[in-house]
């Protein structure tokens, strides 16, 4: 992240264009469709190029799939089913999700049906959120700058744009929320039957004029819930990035305003970097809380479809 700004200012030094904080931040946060990492052709009018968010999404998905599958397979092969090593941590997470998120909301009867889905959502979102805090690709950029020295548009330079949180992209979270949306309907249909689930959306036995008001509101509410899930996760992840980048941009803004690099560096050392570090610490909490919130709300919505006491 720091490097990207440094990279930008290097450009600014070559050409006397002033440092544009807004542009730098948006370039970092957005998906960078103009310069994807791997160019792929358009199919049916859809651009299949691998952008940085797509790459991070795949990396996280592959990582979660491999780590969890290998751990659980190894655990199941043992003579006695006693967890050891990483399996201990995984089991603690599974138990936490089952006992304190799914069971109280969904109810004892449906726990085993819905825990796998909620658990998958939790672990995936947690890993996708957390990987944005790990500066792997920034280290790669450092290596590139001092050792490899590849060209301007090389593959490594493209990779350097990675290291973002895939869940900071609204499309990713919209897809996750769509899974929840489908799960709500499936949960209601499994518990009450397909037709009854839709009837359960509104209370029975009211005077008919109320239904004219109530049915549109309930249909709207059906779509608002996944929409709120989408916005909450993506905006929280993007918000953290923007806050950190804004603080770090102040270094360059101050240096430019005073015309001396030393002022910027001093301001950075005293204000920007400590504050950015503090916000990074806050981000660790946000990463955990947002993964928890997404799964908790999914479980609550699924539970509401199952326990529709109208």
């Amino acid at each position, binding site marked *: 992240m720091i490097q990207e700004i440094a990279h930008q200012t290097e450009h600014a030094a070559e050409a006397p264009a002033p440092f544009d904080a807004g542009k730098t931040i948006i370039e970092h946060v957005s998906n960078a469709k103009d310069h994807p990492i791997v160019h792929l052709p358009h199919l049916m009018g859809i651009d299949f190029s691998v952008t940085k968010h797509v790459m991070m999404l795949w990396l996280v998905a592959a990582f979660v799939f491999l780590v969890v599958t290998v751990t659980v397979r190894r655990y199941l092969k043992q003579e006695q089913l006693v967890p050891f090593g990483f399996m201990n941590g995984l089991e603690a997470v599974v138990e936490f999700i089952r006992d304190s998120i799914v069971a109280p909301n969904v109810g004892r009867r449906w726990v085993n049906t819905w825990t796998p889905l909620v658990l998958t959502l939790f672990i995936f979102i947690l890993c996708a959120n957390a990987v944005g805090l790990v500066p792997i690709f920034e280290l790669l950029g450092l290596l590139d700058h001092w050792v490899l020295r590849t060209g301007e548009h090389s593959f490594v330079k493209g990779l350097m744009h990675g290291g973002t949180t895939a869940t900071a992209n609204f499309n990713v979270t919209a897809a996750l929320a769509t899974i929840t949306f489908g799960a709500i309907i499936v949960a209601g249909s499994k518990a009450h039957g397909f037709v009854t689930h839709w009837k359960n959306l509104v209370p029975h036995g009211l005077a008919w004029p109320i239904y004219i008001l109530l049915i549109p509101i309930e249909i709207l509410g059906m779509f608002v819930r996944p929409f*709120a899930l989408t916005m*909450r996760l993506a*905006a929280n992840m993007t918000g953290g990035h923007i806050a950190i980048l804004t603080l770090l941009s102040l270094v360059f803004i101050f240096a430019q305003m005073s015309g001396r690099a030393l002022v910027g560096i001093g301001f950075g050392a005293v204000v920007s970097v400590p504050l950015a570090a503090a916000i990074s610490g806050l981000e660790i909490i946000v990463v955990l809380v947002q993964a928890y919130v997404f799964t908790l709300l999914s479980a609550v919505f699924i539970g509401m479809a199952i326990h529709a006491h109208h």
Partner: protein
Amino acid sequence: MVGSLHFFGAALGLGMIVIGAALGIGKFAAAAAESIARQPNAADKITGAVNLPLFLLEGVAIIAEVGVLLIVLLK
């Protein structure tokens, strides 16, 4: 002058969002702390009951902030 009015509106909106969210979260925290002080045994249940509306409130604030961001970006 008129060209930068949307920045003014966005900044004003952001401040109002923060006021609203802070009032809401403050009330939640106060009520939760009071009730836990009164009944320390029920701390888990109280936290659980406070969590859900807290996150819903946070969601509303976040959506409003996204709206503000869109005003700034799209002008």
